[in-house]
C-alpha cells in the first residue's frame, strides 16, 4: 500500500493513497493543523473536497478509523505502523496459549521476542503498562509494540506456533 507524500511549501504536507475503487484519497495537512480531505476519481479528474477537520477533530476521527474505539471482527493480522519499522500488534490469548495463567515476568516476553507489552485488554477493562507480576488470562488481548519482526515472533509465541 503506497502512500505518496509531497511537500507543499508554505502550506504543509500532502499525502495520497490509492483506494480500492481506483480513485485516490488526498489528505492535505496544513501547518496550522487543519486537515483537508479530497477524493480524486481518476488521474485526469479534479480533486473534490470531501471535508475538513480541525487538528483536534482530525485526531479523534483518526483514532476512530484506526480502530481504537471498536475493533471489528478480526480478519487476520491487524498491523499499525508507528513509523520506521515500529509496529503495534494486538494478539488474542487463547486458552492453550503458553501465556494463559502465567505472569508476564514468568513468560519473559521481551527477552524472548523483543516486543514490549503496552497493555492487556480484558473485556471492558484495560491494564495499561502491566508489570511483571500481571497475570495473563485466556481471552485477554495483548497490545505489543516493537520492530515488525519482534511483533511477528511475539504473535507466534502467544499462539504457540
Amino acid at each position, binding site marked *: 500500500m503506497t502512500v505518496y507524500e*509531497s*511537500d507543499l*511549501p*508554505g502550506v504543509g504536507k500532502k499525502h495520497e493513497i490509492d483506494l480500492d475503487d481506483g480513485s485516490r484519497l488526498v489528505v*492535505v495537512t496544513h*501547518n496550522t493543523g487543519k486537515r483537508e480531505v479530497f477524493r480524486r476519481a481518476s488521474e485526469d479528474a479534479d480533486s473534490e473536497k470531501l471535508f475538513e477537520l480541525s487538528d483536534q477533530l482530525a485526531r479523534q476521527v483518526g483514532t476512530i478509523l484506526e480502530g481504537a474505539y471498536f475493533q471489528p471482527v478480526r480478519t487476520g493480522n491487524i498491523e499499525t505502523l508507528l513509523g520506521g519499522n515500529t509496529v503495534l500488534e494486538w494478539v488474542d490469548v487463547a486458552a492453550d496459549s503458553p501465556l494463559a495463567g502465567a505472569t508476564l515476568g514468568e513468560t519473559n516476553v521481551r527477552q524472548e521476542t523483543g516486543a514490549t507489552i503496552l497493555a492487556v485488554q480484558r473485556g471492558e477493562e484495560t491494564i495499561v503498562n502491566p508489570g511483571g507480576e500481571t497475570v495473563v488470562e485466556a481471552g485477554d488481548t495483548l497490545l505489543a509494540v516493537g520492530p515488525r519482526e519482534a511483533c511477528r515472533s511475539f504473535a507466534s509465541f502467544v499462539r504457540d506456533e
Partner: protein
Amino acid sequence: MAADLLALGELFAVVAVAGAVGLRLGLSVIPLYVLGGTVAGEFVLGRVGLPYVSSGEAITLLAELGIVLLLFFLGLEFSLDRLLAARSRITRAGLLDLGVNFPVGVGIGLALGWSAVEALLLGGIVYVSSSAIVTKSLIDLGWIANPEAEPILGTLVFEDLFMAAYLAFVSSLVLGGESVEATLGNVAVAFAFLGALFLLVQFGTGLFQGALDVSSPEAFVLRVLGVTVPVAGAALALGVSEAVAAFFVGMGFASTEHRERIERQLTSVRDVFGAVFFFWIGLSTDPLQVVGAVVPLALAVALTTPTKLVSGYYSGRTYDLSPQRSVRVGVGLVARGEFSLVIAALAAGGTGAVMRETIPALAVGYVLAMSVLGTLLMTQSDRIETLVLRRGAGSADSS
C-alpha cells in the same frame, strides 16, 4: 505623539475594515490593504479636504518591520534540502519562469528610455508572482490537492531564492547612488555581510536551535524578534538589503526544531506588520500618478500575463503534467503581489523621479490589476483550458 498614535489607530481601523471586506467577498486582503491606504491617504481623502492619515515616521518604521517579517517567514519556509531533492524539476520550471518573464519587464523599462537599474527594478516587479495570493487561491479552489500544485509551488520556491539574490544585488545598486565606485563598494559590502550571514545559517544551526530553547511563549516570541530585527537593522545600517538579511535569518531557523512553533506563534505578528506595510505602500501612492503611468502599466499587464501563461505551461510539461493541467500552472502564476511591492518600496528609496515616483505608482497599479486578473483567471480556468487546447489542437491538425 498623539497625532502619531491617532494615525496608527486610523491605519488599523481601515485595515480591519478592509480585512472584513476581503473575508466577505472571498478576496485576497493584500490589494485591499493597499487600496485602503491609498483612499485614507493624502492623495484621496486629503485632496477632497477630509482629514487623512499621513505617512509619518512611526508608520514607515512599522512598515519596515513588516518587510522584515514577511521575508523572515519566507526564509523559514525555505528548505535547501527540499530544493536540492527536487532540484532538477524546480530548477527547470524556475528558470523557464525567470527566462520568459524577467527580460520582458527589463525590455519594457528600456523601451521607455529608463536607466539600466530602473529597468532591472521593473523586471523584478513583473517577474515575481505573489506567493500569498497564489497559495490562498490554490487552497480556496482545491487545486492544492491536484498535481498542478507541485510545479506552481515549486516555481514560487525558486522565485523566493532568486528574489533573495536579486534584492541583495539591486538594493546595492539603488542605494549606491551615482558613482560606479560607490555602487561596487556597496555590492561588495552587501555580499560580504550576507555571505557571512549565510555561512552562519548553514553551519550554525546549533546556535539558532539553542537561542530558542525556552518554553515560555512570551520569551520565545521576544527572542525570535530579538535575533531577526537587530540583524535586519544592522544590515540596513550597512546599506545592505534588510529584506535579504531577514530572509537568511528565517533560513537559519528553518532547520531547527522550532520551525513549526515559530510559524504558530509569530504568524499574527507578521500579519499585523505586513498589513501596516501594504497600507503604507497605498498611503504613499498617488492615484493620479498611477493614471499618469497608464501606458507602461497597460503594456506591462498586456505583455506579462501571456508570458506567465506560457512559462507556466511549459513548466507543467517538465513535470509531466497533461496539457490541461499545464495550462493551469500558467494560470495559477499570473497573480502578482507582496514581492512586487517590496521592490517598489526599495525603488522609492532610490534616486531620480522614475525610481522614487513612477516605479512605485506603476507597481501599485500593476499589483492591483494583476491580483484581480490572476484570481479571476484561476476561477475561469476551465474556459481557458478549453480555449487554449482547442486552438492548439486546431493548429496541430492544420500543420
